[in-house]
């Protein structure tokens, strides 16, 4: 580092009381005594090293267990994967083998139902927030969406039980879809708003300038321009909902058979994992690992694709 002597400080100060009126001569800069630059003391240097080292350790300790989980899943789950695992129904206790075909289909059905409920409402609300959402209603809806995203999934499950299961009189795929839909909703609303807000002003101005009414502008120009992001927003919500277990325990319940009826209990991967992991049979536990690997792949691939796509598109 160079010496920090500021030359203009000497120049700004009048050189003496008698010098008033005379034109300022060349500033008399007092040459500073040569500075001995000492680095930080030993204690501070050690402290510095220690803090930086601790940060590295912390980062390693954060990533390590997460990688361990993925590693154990692959190690213990891969052996259980086979074609039969994907195509067969669960076997009764005692019979080896069996698969998760109905649970995979059930998860897809539940996710589809959830999307059917959450996407229209979520995209509509997101559009409203982005286009008209500066008033009080906008603030209210934004706040409730934030509240909803913080509500524990089990609480949403309890609500879906009261809203759907009790009136229908039985557990059903529909109730599970409603619960998952409620969980997806806030993600879709807020992400749609963000994405639609990113559409450049010039697009809107061009559309309005050509004489399009506002609704035309929104539907023919803004929404298509943001469509990629809106799809991403929906998939992000779907990825979150597909892995949820807690709200399904007492809405969709689970099933060991092929069912596609929406008013009947339906199987799903997360509930299957829960049941099989808690069962006292080694064979079932192995299948729980395999199913967990399948679920992880499903969810992670979905969200990895989504995140990669978003990064490229809008740089969030």
């Amino acid at each position, binding site marked *: 580092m160079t010496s920090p002597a500021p030359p203009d400080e000497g120049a700004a100060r009048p050189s003496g009381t008698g010098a008033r009126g005379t034109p300022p001569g060349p500033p008399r800069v007092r040459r500073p005594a040569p500075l001995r630059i000492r680095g930080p003391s030993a204690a501070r240097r050690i402290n510095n090293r220690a803090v930086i080292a601790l940060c590295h350790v912390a*980062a390693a300790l954060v990533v390590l267990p997460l990688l361990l989980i993925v590693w*154990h899943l692959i190690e213990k789950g891969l052996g259980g994967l086979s074609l039969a695992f994907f195509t067969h129904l669960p076997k009764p206790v005692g019979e080896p083998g069996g698969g998760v075909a109905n649970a995979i289909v059930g998860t897809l059905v539940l996710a589809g139902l959830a999307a059917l409920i959450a996407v229209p409402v979520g995209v509509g609300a997101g559009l409203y927030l982005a286009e008209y959402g500066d008033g009080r209603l906008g603030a209210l809806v934004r706040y409730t969406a934030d509240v909803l995203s913080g509500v524990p999934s089990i609480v949403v499950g309890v609500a879906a039980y*009261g809203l759907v299961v009790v009136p229908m009189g039985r557990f059903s795929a529909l109730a599970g879809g409603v619960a998952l839909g409620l969980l997806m909703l806030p993600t879709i609303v807020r992400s749609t708003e963000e994405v639609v807000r990113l559409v450049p002003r010039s697009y809107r101005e061009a559309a309005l300038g050509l004489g399009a009414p506002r609704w035309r502008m929104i539907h023919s120009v803004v929404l298509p321009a943001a469509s990629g992001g809106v799809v991403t927003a929906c998939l992000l919500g779907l990825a979150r909902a597909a892995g949820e277990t807690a709200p399904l325990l007492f809405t969709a319940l689970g099933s060991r058979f092929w069912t596609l009826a929406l008013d009947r209990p339906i199987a799903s991967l997360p509930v299957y994992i829960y049941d099989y992991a808690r069962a006292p049979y080694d064979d079932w536990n192995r299948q729980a690992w395999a199913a967990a690997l399948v679920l992880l792949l499903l969810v992670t691939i979905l969200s990895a694709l989504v995140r990669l796509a978003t990064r490229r598109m809008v740089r969030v």
Partner: protein
Amino acid sequence: MSATSLAAAPNGAAARVRGRALARFADAAHRRLLALTALSVFALVALIVIEITRGALPAIQAFGWRFLAVTDWDPVAEHFGALPYLYGTAVSSALALLFALPLGVGASVYLAELAPRRVGETLSFVIELLASIPSIVYGVWGMFVLAPFLRVAIEPWLIARLGFLPLFRGYPFGIGMLNAGIVLAIMILPTIVSISRAVLLAMPRALREAALALGATRAEAIGVTLDAARPGILGAVILALGRALGETMAVTMVIGNTNRVSASLLAPGATMASVIANEFTEATSRLHLAALIEIALVLFAFTVVVNAAARLLVLWSTGGRRDIAGAA
């Protein structure tokens, strides 16, 4: 507009006026429609609150505030008190924060300040990705990997060395509060790290540069930035706390599920969320079900308060950058 064209096409002008009125009407209708969908989000949340409150009503009427202060949970005698579950939720979440807070802040400092840019971005991408692992997967891991490890390696050691403290008395079960705390910590770390990193990156560079220019070491400069980012990081931590409070599946699988209040971290326990998951489908009496729904109501209230506080803090400290608060 010239008089001739007006005279030549009076119908066209009238049609234009009519068209404009129609467009105005369509605009207003479209706006109303969108407002209605937006309002339905609010209506759905209101519906959830009303439904849960209605379901909890029998228990509220039967027990009043005593519900939150009594440890007695006896479905047969129909005495219900939620204190063991409040205690379990508080202890497991506190443990999780104890583990996750220093690790999370340290890691986010590394990602935001120390790591080369490419490494920082790649690692945060991986961490964000890991945040999307379903909680049931954490549960399976905690049950089959972490629990045996704790039972064989960690807990006997804790009992032998620190057994004089009531915190570490008991038997090495493997499952229990300690396991739940560790699993929860792993689950909330991505939240803490990714938001704290975003907050740190949003701090003005001038802060760090000024500190360095005054001769601060790197660690001291980081301290200055951290100081400025404190409200945002606090927000991230509280948001993570909200997640820990409501986390259900992983905790249910590793906490052991007993309604005893025990001072020992090695003992099994239960949380508000885990008791709902465990007993909801098996509740036979009306009052039992209502008591479980009341626990859901309490949990809901907790998380709403915690999340509101967290979001305000994050928004405030990042100057209203909704993308950071919203991404959480």
